[in-house]
Every structure is written in C-alpha cells, then in structure tokens.
C-alpha cells in the first residue's frame, strides 16, 4: 500500500514539475532579456509608487507575461532588484498569475456557463494583490526582503556583477535616500554574462521547485482528497477546505480552472472562487520560490494575509450568490 502510494506520489511529482518547468523557463528568459535590454532598469524606477496605483500598475503588467505563478517569481525578483517600487513588484507577483490571457482563457473554457466567475476571478485577484501589497508595505524592507535581495536592490544590479568594495561602500541607512543617490548608468552586460546569470537562476529556481513539488505530491498521495471535499456543503468550512486544497494540489494557475471543474458541482460558488484565487498567490510548490524573495516573517504575512482576504471574498460571494 505504501509502495503504491509512493509510486503515485512519484508520478504526481513528475506531473507537477514537468507542468511548471516550461513556465519557470519563460519567466527566467523574460527576466534575463529585461536585464540585457535595460541593465539599469531606470524606467522601472519611474513606475508609480502610490500605495494603490503601484500594485494596480504591477497587476496590469501581468498581461505581458503569460505564465503561471512559477514564472512570475524571477520576473518579480528582477523588478525588485532593478529598484521598481515595492508595491508595483508585489502587485505583479500576486496578481499577474491570474491577470494574463492564458489563465483568463482557461477560466472561460472551463466555466462558460458561469459568466460571473470570468469577472470575479480577475477582480478578486486584483483585490488580493492590492491588499497584500498594502499589508506587506507595513513591514520595513529590511524585515520583508531577504538580505541578499535587499542588497542587490540597493545597488541596482546583481551581486556577482559588482566588487566587494562597490557593495560595501556608500550604502548607509535605509529608506528612500539611497534611491535618490545618482547612479552611473550601467553598461549593457555581455550576452554571455546574461546567459550565465539566467542559467544559474533557472537551475537554482528549479531545485526549489523540485522541493515544493515533492511536498505537494506527498501530501496529495497520503491525504485523501475526499476529506477536504467532505465539507462541501457548509458555506464557511467549504471555503477553508478549498483553500487548503489549493495549497496542497499546487497546480499552475493556467490549468487550475479545469481541476476545479471536477468538483465545482459539489461546492458553493464562494469556495470555488477561493480555490481559484489562493492557489496563484501561494501554495506548497511556491513556498520555496517565494523564500527567495521574502524573509520568513514576510512569507508568513503573505500566507496569513492572502488566506484572510480570500476567505472574506469567498464569504461575500456566498452571500451574494446563495
């Protein structure tokens, strides 16, 4: 029995990983091309830093990247390193996995008879992204972002591209002062260096993805899905159960609508929307990748904040639709 479950877990692991790898590659390639074309990313620093306009702008950038949440992480990382306003980068990170043509098309393909969902999913994703961006901005950047990411953000370029003296000199204090210091325009890096950096980034992210997929596959194999769907009738419990399911199955946002279709008839509409909103923001597969951006405190705040926002949205939809 255990051997059969492990064999199934191995198959599920391969399915999750092979499904996510192409999107991870797309994200890394876009990040690498962006770094080559705009090495200083000066235009990124001109994006709005307004608490509401910033995340909305970031969310709108998602239409340019048709990838799931795995591919968004390297691009969001690139935005943060290049000095884009944090709200914009966070809005992109949390909303772009839903606000892209492929996900919207797959949602329509899976639920053509539920037009309310075609509006509720993108609007809900924007609401969650804006809410999370506002929440995470309460933390100072040194408490939110990983130390190496913060250092790269302050320098505006990857650590491997600058000397120890450049890293350690002239960077004092925190806050907006460092961003106003005039930076010399960095030259376009050689293509070989961009390829080296992109390859290393892909391999590092792939390893984190492997760990996340392994955890998700083991949980799926040893925790019967029926346990989570047994509370399908209860309005609030069903939302919580479907949020847990979204965390566990860790399927890419490009196809989660098709997966949700298989149990949509058993659950209230609020729970269905909760499943479709939480998965693109955070799941077991994504935890390792998000750990490249956030400190543990930021990660916990992201998980708690997104869960609370999605629960509230799900409850509201149940009140509206039931």
């Amino acid at each position, binding site marked *: 029995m255990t051997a*059969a*479950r492990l*064999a*199934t877990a*191995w*198959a*599920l692991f*391969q*399915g999750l*990983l*092979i*499904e996510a*790898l*192409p999107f991870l*590659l*797309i994200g890394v*390639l876009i990040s690498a091309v962006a770094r080559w074309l705009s090495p200083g990313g000066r235009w990124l620093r001109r994006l709005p830093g307004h608490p509401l306009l910033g995340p909305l702008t970031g969310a709108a950038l998602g239409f340019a990247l048709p990838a799931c949440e795995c591919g968004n992480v390297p691009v969001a990382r690139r935005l943060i390193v290049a000095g884009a306003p944090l709200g914009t980068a966070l809005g992109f990170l949390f909303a772009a996995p839903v606000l892209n043509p492929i996900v919207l098309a797959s949602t329509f*393909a*899976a639920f053509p008879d539920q037009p309310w969902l075609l509006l509720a999913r993108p609007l809900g994703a924007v609401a969650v992204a804006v809410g999370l961006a506002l929440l995470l901005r309460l933390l100072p950047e040194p408490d939110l972002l990983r130390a190496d990411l913060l250092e790269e953000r302050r320098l505006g370029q990857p*650590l*491997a*591209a*600058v*000397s*120890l*003296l*450049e*890293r350690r000199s002239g960077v004092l204090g925190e806050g907006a002062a460092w961003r106003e210091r005039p930076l010399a325009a960095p030259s376009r*890096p*050689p*293509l*070989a*260096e961009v*390829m*080296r950096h*992109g*390859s*290393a980034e*892909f*391999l*590092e992210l*792939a*390893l984190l993805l*492997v760990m996340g997929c392994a955890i998700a596959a083991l949980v*799926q*194999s040893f925790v019967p*899905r029926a346990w989570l769907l047994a509370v399908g009738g209860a309005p609030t419990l069903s939302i919580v159960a479907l949020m847990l399911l979204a965390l566990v199955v860790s399927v890419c946002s490009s*196809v989660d609508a*098709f*997966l949700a*279709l*298989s149990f949509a008839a058993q659950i209230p509409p609020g729970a269905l929307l909760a499943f479709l909103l939480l998965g693109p923001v955070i799941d077991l597969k994504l935890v390792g990748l998000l750990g490249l951006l956030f400190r543990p405190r930021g990660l916990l705040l992201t998980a708690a904040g997104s869960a609370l926002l999605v629960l509230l949205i799900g409850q509201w939809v149940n009140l509206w639709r039931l």
Partner: protein
Amino acid sequence: MGESLAPLKRAALWRAAALGLWALVLLRSAVDGRLDLLLRAVFHPLVGVAGGLLLALALLQLALGLGLGPGGRDPARSGAFERIRRRQALLLPATAAVAALLLALPPAPSFADLAGQRPRDDTAASELSFVLPPAQRTLTDWVRLLRSQPDPR
C-alpha cells in the same frame, strides 16, 4: 588570467551538464508518452519547446565552458564571485542529480489512485479512437479514456 578563468569554465561545464539533463527530461517526456499520463493535452507542445530551448542553452553554456565563445567579465571584478561559486558548487550537482533521477525512473503510478483522482481533461479529444481491441489496450489508454469522459450524472 588563465587560472582565474578555470573556475568560470568549470562552472559553465557544470551548468551545461545540468541544463542538458533537464532538457533531456522534458524532451524525453514529450516523446515517450508519459505526458499522456501526467499532463493535459494542451501542454504537450509547450514541454517539447521548453526542452528544445533548454538544450540550446546547454549547448551555448558548453561552448562557453570549452572556451569556444566570448567570455564573461573578468572574475576579479565580481566581488561576490567566490560566495556564489561555492553556492553553485552545491546546487549544480544537486539539480543535475534530480534530473538524472527523473530520466532513470519513469512514472509507474497506481492506476487505481490516478483514475480515482482524475480531473476532467477537456483539452483532450472527446472521442478516443482505439486502434487496438479492448484486451490489448494499455492502462494508460484506459486512464486517458476515464479522464476524457465526464462523471455520470
């Protein structure tokens, strides 16, 4: 100068090997039929294209490692070079090992578990045409059939 470039070239060769293995994982998955069991039909071409891209990247890294292409910046200017090189010295073999495992161990799931957990796959053909008689169809064919048909109402 030559000695300072040797670690860069070694790292490039390791990256080439790791990328090549991942490329093989995706390309082999695209041709050996395991995608029929693992993924929805609409994603199959994307896996093949991604495998091709990774293979191209691996070959470019190999060219860099063998000194056949333009080199990167002088490593003496990279202040974090040693720290990143040490981290990659651990990461690269680990990721290459995972890719090698995926190549060596194809999926062999419990078909009862897979069929029981089957999601709908509306991207697959709604009517499967079988060339072989029922007794000669593989378990993969039957799982595909179960996935493409809706649950009875």
